[in-house]
Every structure is written in structure tokens, then in C-alpha cells.
């Protein structure tokens, strides 16, 4: 096997290849093989969702959030998209020697606040300090468990004609982090969309019994997540470029820096695949909640078995959108 590069962690094709060829092969079991955001477990007569995620964001503080709240919301969201109510969370922190105590305090406070907001309890944890240079200030892992209240969410349920809905404008998080990290100032502050989705998703699942599948478009953005869904469903997906919601400053920043908003990470958005007839109702439910403002139906599941994602461009053309290959960089050329 080749040496691991940053590309293997960017959420795109390389990462999927690594997961499939190494981890899934070695650990193979029916639950893992489903590749859900959370594993759904039968314990006694209860269905429990279980997930884990590590957070290595640079910078650790950014407009609209920080590594602490991100670590809580990210795990809450991974449970929520599986139709589970997040209950308990663990926190593992790997801290670089020399980190300012006040920085750590700020992160921990932010986590406590985020947990309160999302209605979860942090019930166990672990702390390690490593030599300077062994990690970048702080890495946080969170695991979470939740109780499944809506069963049957699965890419297997996805059928031709289903609507593809996104819960709000995309790309805010990526632009917020990028402009802070690369020191590119825009005058206007673009705030991350980092937020817990538990309540929003609960409302959606209460308003419709025909939700097929959900996933939050984090690393790799809308394009990559739609590709994952298409692969899982073994069905094509077609979206309309003009319907994809992107806020004006994010669009402008993309034009300026040569980025494609379809590949920008979100931390407070969810993609919902649902039966076409329930689309408008779900849209209404989303729009009534602050966290779902700007939600749009962006496309539909096609009948073909290509497992490809197609974009009908604003100019009237059509193109395939693939998964991300390597994180996007600002460019001038």
C-alpha cells in the first residue's frame, strides 16, 4: 500500500478507496458494511445508534464556531441523520504540549454549551498530552449514542422520482474556515453554519413518513455527499445548478478564489431524500425553523442505474459531478 497523503482524509474518492480496501475489508461485518453515519444496533429490544468522529480543524476558532462546538454538533448530527435522538457523548482530547490554558478553557466551555444546546450529556472522556509537534494544538474525538425514533432510513429505500432537498445555503463553513486559515479577508465576515440539526430533523421526520435517507454534507460538500448517496442507492441523481442555494458572499468568495461551492463543507446542513409528494411539506417544515431557512428542492433521483450525479448547469449544459479529489485550494489562475 502507498504512503498516506492528506488527500486520503479529504472526504473524497481517495478516502472512500482507503476505507473500502482496508478498513471495511479487515473489520467486515453486516453493520459496518452498511457505511451509515451511525451504526444502528439492536440492544435488548431497543434500537441504538452509535457513531464516532475526530476533529482536527485549523483554525480552532473561526467566525460562527470553534473546534469544541463543532465536535459536539458533528456527532449529534451524525446520530440525527440516522433518525436517532442523541443522548450521550464521550470526549477524547489529544493536546499538544504548550497549548495555552485559556485556549483549552475556551474550547471546553464551548463544548459544554454546545452539549446543552443539543440536549446531550458528556458522560465520559479521556485526555492525552503529546510532545510539541506531535499534533496541532488540539485534536478532539467524540463518540455518541442515541435512541432510534425513526426506523427504515436507508439508501435502499431511494426510488426514481424522489426529491433531493438541501436544508439551507451551502459552503458557509468552508469559506469561514478558509478565509481565517489562509488570512484572506473579505471585509464582511462569513460565519460558519455549524449547528446542531437534531430538532430540525426531528420536525422533518414528524412531518413526513416518506423520508428515505438523510446525510449531512460535511467534508467534500454537496457534490461528494450526493455521490455517496447515488452509489448507495445504485441510482443516478440530477440536480439543477440554479436551485442550489449559495449565499451571495459565499458565491462571491468562490468567484474570487476559484472555488466550486458544490464541494464546500457544511456543518449545519442536511440533504434529505424523500418521496416527491412530500417534498413541499418537508420544505415548509424546514423553512419554519431558523436552522432550515433557505432550504430548497435541488433535484431528483433519476431512473438510470449509473450511480452518477448530474448537474444541469445554468447555461443549459449538463455535466457529471464527481466526488472531491483533494481539498480545494484558493487559486488565481
Amino acid at each position, binding site marked *: 500500500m502507498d504512503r498516506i*497523503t*492528506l*488527500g486520503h482524509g479529504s472526504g*473524497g*474518492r*481517495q478516502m472512500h478507496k482507503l476505507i473500502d480496501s482496508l478498513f471495511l475489508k479487515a473489520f467486515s461485518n453486516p453493520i459496518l458494511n452498511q457505511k451509515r453515519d451511525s451504526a444502528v444496533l439492536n440492544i435488548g429490544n431497543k434500537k441504538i445508534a452509535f457513531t464516532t468522529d475526530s476533529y482536527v480543524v485549523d483554525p480552532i476558532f473561526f467566525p460562527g464556531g470553534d473546534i469544541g462546538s463543532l465536535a459536539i454538533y458533528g456527532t449529534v448530527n451524525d446520530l440525527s441523520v440516522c433518525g436517532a435522538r442523541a443522548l450521550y457523548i464521550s470526549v477524547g482530547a489529544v493536546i499538544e504540549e504548550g497549548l495555552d490554558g485559556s485556549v483549552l478553557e475556551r474550547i471546553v466551555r464551548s463544548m459544554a454549551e454546545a452539549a446543552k444546546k443539543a440536549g446531550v450529556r458528556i458522560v465520559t472522556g479521556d485526555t492525552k498530552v503529546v510532545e510539541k*509537534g506531535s499534533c496541532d494544538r488540539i485534536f478532539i474525538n467524540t463518540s455518541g449514542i442515541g435512541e432510534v425514533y425513526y426506523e427504515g432510513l436507508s439508501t435502499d429505500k431511494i426510488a426514481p422520482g424522489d426529491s433531493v432537498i438541501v436544508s439551507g445555503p451551502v459552503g458557509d463553513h468552508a469559506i469561514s474556515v478558509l478565509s481565517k486559515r*489562509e*488570512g*484572506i479577508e473579505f471585509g464582511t465576515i462569513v460565519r460558519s453554519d455549524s449547528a446542531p440539526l437534531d430538532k430540525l430533523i426531528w420536525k422533518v421526520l414528524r412531518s413526513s413518513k416518506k423520508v428515505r435517507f438523510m446525510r449531512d454534507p460535511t467534508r467534500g460538500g454537496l457534490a461528494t455527499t450526493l455521490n455517496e448517496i447515488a452509489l448507495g442507492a445504485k441510482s443516478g441523481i440530477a440536480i439543477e445548478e440554479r436551485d442550489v442555494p449559495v449565499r*451571495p458572499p459565499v*458565491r*462571491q468568495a468562490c*468567484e474570487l*478564489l*476559484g472555488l*466550486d461551492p458544490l464541494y464546500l463543507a457544511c456543518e449545519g446542513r442536511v440533504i434529505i431524500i424523500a418521496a416527491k409528494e412530500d417534498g413541499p411539506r418537508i420544505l415548509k417544515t424546514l423553512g419554519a425553523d431558523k436552522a432550515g431557512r433557505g432550504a430548497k428542492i435541488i433535484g431528483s433521483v433519476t431512473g438510470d442505474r449509473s450511480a452518477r450525479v448530474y*448537474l444541469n*448547469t*445554468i*447555461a*443549459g*449544459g*449538463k*455535466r*457529471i459531478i*464527481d466526488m472531491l*479529489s*483533494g481539498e*480545494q*485550494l*484558493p*487559486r*488565481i*489562475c
Partner: protein
Amino acid sequence: MKYIDEFRSRALTSRLISRIRSVADEGREYRYMEVCGTHTMAIFKYGLRELLPRNIRLISGPGCPVCVTPLEYLDRAIAIAGLPKVIITTFGDMLRVPGSSSTLENERAGGKHIKVVYSTDDALDIANRNTDKEVVFLGVGFETTVPTVAASIMSAAKQGIHNYSVLCAHKTMPEALGAIMAHRDARIDGFLLPGHVSAITGMKPYGFLAKRYGAGCVAAGFEPVDMLQAILMLMEQKRPIVEVQYKRIVDPLGNRLARKAIEKVFEKSSSEWRGIGKLKNSGLRIRKEFSRFDASLKFRVKTVRPREDKSCICGAVLKGIKTPVDCKLFGKKCTPADPVGSCMVSSEGTCAAYYKYGRR
């Protein structure tokens, strides 16, 4: 977005498409080269190839600075990054371009001081704030970008900033287009000239392409309406001439002030184009009176002349003789995540664009 959205209008693109269809002579093939990498990107991004009649062939040209920058330049930049007290500043484009054994991104992960900047002004700021360090800017790009680098050097000279220098690999466009037309396998009927380069150079430098080589030329903008209109203009030319489609931006005389800045700081030199080879008068080097800002003189580093993969056909792709799908490495050994040749490296490189946006 003003001056952007109206040039993406579907009403206008469909009008242009139907006009192109009615003008197109089915009995012939139209071979047009879009010179600029940003054109290539836009063509794929908006799915324009799908909209055009099949006998209009768009061939991607050499206008991607990342693609034509030689490996040795990267090796040199990486070697300088390894010197003590050096901060490398660069446009994001260069970060992932592989040198012989590493990339700037890898070196940055390994702790080297490499900063992505959006502007040479940002690089000068970094020099001002780190007077105990040497700040080196990677000067890559064509006539659009060169004036901004020239301005930074003039500004450093004026302000007495001694810890700023430029590792220069700037190139100029017309000579490369001439080299393509001079090639015996070249079959190009016309050029979509790079709109933003033309905004600086004006249209005069391209006259020889029409006169000597009989290639029609239209300076084109980068929105779908711009490119389609430029294609239509090329098709409707009675004889090869040099025209401007991108009139809202391009003055046929160019930007004289910007050219003066280039001439003050740089002089013509021969230059190595990755995949094409050495071309006379196609590059720029820093003039003697500004040599103290020349990183290649300031930092003496040793590099070995690197070897390119023999089966890579990037050279022929850059010249428009072959397309990426003709290459046996394409999509197999050579992918955007692990590029072999130059055209797969930058997201606007021909091979990367083919890979990302589907192949045809």
C-alpha cells in the same frame, strides 16, 4: 453579481447555440483552441461541449501556468523552503504541484513555512511583519499576473524592503501560440484568445497568428455567453482576423500602465515550458537593476535535472495534437489525486478538467 450573472443567462446561451447550429457547415470540422486554462474550466463547468454541434472541436491550449511550469522550478522552490529563516509565499495554485519528490503542501505539513497568499500585497505585508525572515514569492503566471508581481518589486524597492524576493517563472503567451502553429501536426483553425491576458497586452501581439498562420483570433471572456459568442465570431470570420468579443473588458490597446510596470522590472528571456520545451523570448526574467529581488540569485540551491515519465503525452496535449483520453496513463496511473503529468496537476489543466467533468 453584476457583469457576471447576465453573461450566464440561459436565454442568451440558447440563442447563441441555435445560431451556431445554423451557421455550422456540416461538411467540415471546426478546430478551435481555447488558450486559457480558465476557458477550459468554464467549458467543462457549464457543460458547453454538450451544447455545441459535434463538428466543433474545442482543443485546450497551453494557458495554464501551473501545467507549463517545469518540474525543476518546483524542486528549486522546495529547496529554498528548506533553507533556514525562509517563508515561501505562493498562490494556492502551486501548492499541490508535484516536484521530483515532494509538493509544497507536503513540505508545509512537514513544518516548512509556506503561506498561501491571494495577492503580492499580502506577500509584501508578510515581509514587512517578519523582518528577521526572508520572504520569497513564487512568481508564476502570464501577462495578467506579471504586472502585479512587477508592482510588488517596485514597491519593495521604493519602501526599502530587503527581505522580499521573487522566484520568477513568468511566461508570455503569444510566443507559445506561435510555437504551436509552427508545429507540423498543428491543426488549429482559430484561437479563443485569453481575455484577461489580452486586457493587458492588447491585440497587437496576436496579429501574426492571423497573418502568418491563417488562424482566426477572438479575445474571449470567461462566462458561457462570452465563449459561445466568441466561437460564433470565429465561425463567421470571412478571412482570419483578430477580433475582440470581450469588449467590456479588453481595450484593443491593452493596459499601458501595466505593460510599463512589466517592462520596468522584467526583460524577455527564453523559457522552458513543461511538455513543450524551451521557447525563445517566451519568458521574463528580472532586470539587473532589480537583481537583489531575484530569488534565483539570492539563494543558491542545487537541483538535479528531473526526469519526466516517458509514457506521458502532456506535451502533445498542450499543443492540441492529442486529447487526454489518448493517453494510456489517463485515469489510471495519472489522476488528480496522484498526477504524473503536468496537465493533471492544476484543476484547470486539460487532463484534470477532463477527469473531473467527464470525458468526451
